[in-house]
């Protein structure tokens, strides 16, 4: 299928930014290599009640609450031996039911074909599309459900498109636990305006509900010696759209931190202003719910053999309050030495409180949170399995 080459229309900003009243309570959804846990906070976000494990022994890549109904949870699951599936709860996790038809590729007419190893990413669709969800898989595939996650079908043409398949590469080209389709984002002003990213395989945009996609990699760097014109060499780690200004996106990439202000199609590297000894490599990217100039990252050691640890064993978040011109270190309360964990791409998030609460899960099985936008951190759970994702939901 042909891909459009026209530039996306500039959309008039119609988002009303307002400070929400503090919600009644927050639940932190933690997905790990060995199951899922829910941590229910009190209204002050000071004490936490542990609910779990759910699906003990299952590899859970993502647990997401549907903000449109406030009660439907989806969990992307598999085990070391069984194939992938999706579990659904319609009562905030009290009971779960398996999806009737989990994401799966089309059966190949010739050749070996692809099989979903695991569903990696879950995104509720637009507010005007109740019960619709998107899923990204490993190996890279894009899927959609129209019935609250019970049945899934391939979305758009990309899963079987020759050009996209070339950009996706094979498992040989992917991250250590498989190449991912991730960062599926829906413009809150327009359900047909979508973004997704692939590791590897670049960032992609559709303005026609997935009928066509265009690449969005201009300005993004690739590893030295490789050709930036080849989409396959682009490795976005996490891309986020600002809810307060959907024309602004931020990206944590294998090769730095970037910002994109539409209608421009050119990413600006904003990580160069990070301290040199820390660098601007990492996985998570967290946007402020009301201030598009404020984002947080969690750098990791991406030197030499890519240790994927905190630089020098000293974990810290970094925040910019001016869209990337400068960054400040936020490590008060975090271990100040010999802490060799890091934070995966889905394992750091923010709530909507004022001040914003930040939450992160570590590869060493700890959950840390900050009630003051990162000024002070405290550990709210430890001794969990390796944490794959952390989401926060607000329950009424």
């Amino acid at each position, binding site marked *: 299928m042909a891909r459009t080459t026209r530039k996306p229309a500039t959309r008039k900003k119609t988002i009303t930014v307002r400070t929400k009243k503090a919600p009644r309570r927050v639940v932190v959804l933690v997905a790990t290599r060995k199951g899922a846990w829910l941590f229910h906070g009190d209204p002050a976000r000071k004490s936490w009640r542990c609910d779990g494990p759910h699906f003990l022994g299952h590899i859970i890549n993502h647990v997401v609450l549907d903000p449109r109904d406030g009660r439907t949870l989806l969990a992307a699951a598999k*085990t*070391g*031996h*069984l*194939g992938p*599936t999706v579990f659904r709860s319609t009562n905030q996790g009290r009971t779960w039911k*398996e*999806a*009737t038809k*989990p994401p*799966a*590729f*089309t*059966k*190949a007419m010739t050749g*070996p*074909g*692809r*099989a*979903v190893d695991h569903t990696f990413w879950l995104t509720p669709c637009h507010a005007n599309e109740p019960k619709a969800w998107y899923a990204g898989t490993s190996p890279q595939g894009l899927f959609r459900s129209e019935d609250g996650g019970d049945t899934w079908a391939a979305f758009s043409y990309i899963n079987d498109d020759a050009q996209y398949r070339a950009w996706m590469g094979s498992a040989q080209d992917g991250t250590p636990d498989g190449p991912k389709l991730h960062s599926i984002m829906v413009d809150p002003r327009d359900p047909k305006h979508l973004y997704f990213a692939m590791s590897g395989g670049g960032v992609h945009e559709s303005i026609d509900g997935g009928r066509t996609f265009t690449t969005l990699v201009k300005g993004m760097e690739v590893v030295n010696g490789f050709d930036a014109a080849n989409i396959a060499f682009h490795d976005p780690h996490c891309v986020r759209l600002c809810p307060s200004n959907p024309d602004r996106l931020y990206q944590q990439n294998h090769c730095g931190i970037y910002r994109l202000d539409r209608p421009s199609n050119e990413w600006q590297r904003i990580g160069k202003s990070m301290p040199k000894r820390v660098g601007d490599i990492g996985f998570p990217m967290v946007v402020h719910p009301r201030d598009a100039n404020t984002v947080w990252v969690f750098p990791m050691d991406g030197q030499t053999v890519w240790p994927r640890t905190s630089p020098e064993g000293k974990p810290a978040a970094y925040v910019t309050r001016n869209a990337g011109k400068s960054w400040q270190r936020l490590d008060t309360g975090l271990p100040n030495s010999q802490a060799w964990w890091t934070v995966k791409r889905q394992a750091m998030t923010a709530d909507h409180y004022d001040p914003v609460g930040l939450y992160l899960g570590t590869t060493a099985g700890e959950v840390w949170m900050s009630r003051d936008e990162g000024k002070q951190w405290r550990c709210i759970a430890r001794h969990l399995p390796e944490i794959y994702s952390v989401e926060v939901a607000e329950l009424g």
Partner: protein
Amino acid sequence: MQVLIPSALQSYTKSNTVEASGATLTELLANLDRQYPGLRFRIVDEQDQMRPHMRFFVNGVQVFDLTQGLQPTDCVYLVQALSGG
């Protein structure tokens, strides 16, 4: 015929042994999936390939071909080859 179910799949069957029918392993799996929806996809992928770590034994002999014929008196073992940490 009798089918032995590994522990990882007993959340579907609630039993370690079930009765199912089919003239081939493919048909047997379809029959099992009708009885226990979702079970087949956990052991065979969308390309009809046995997932890694899943193994089939018919009357004690390992079988890799899902088109293999079966008799009503056969005993089928589904086995998961445990691995990993």
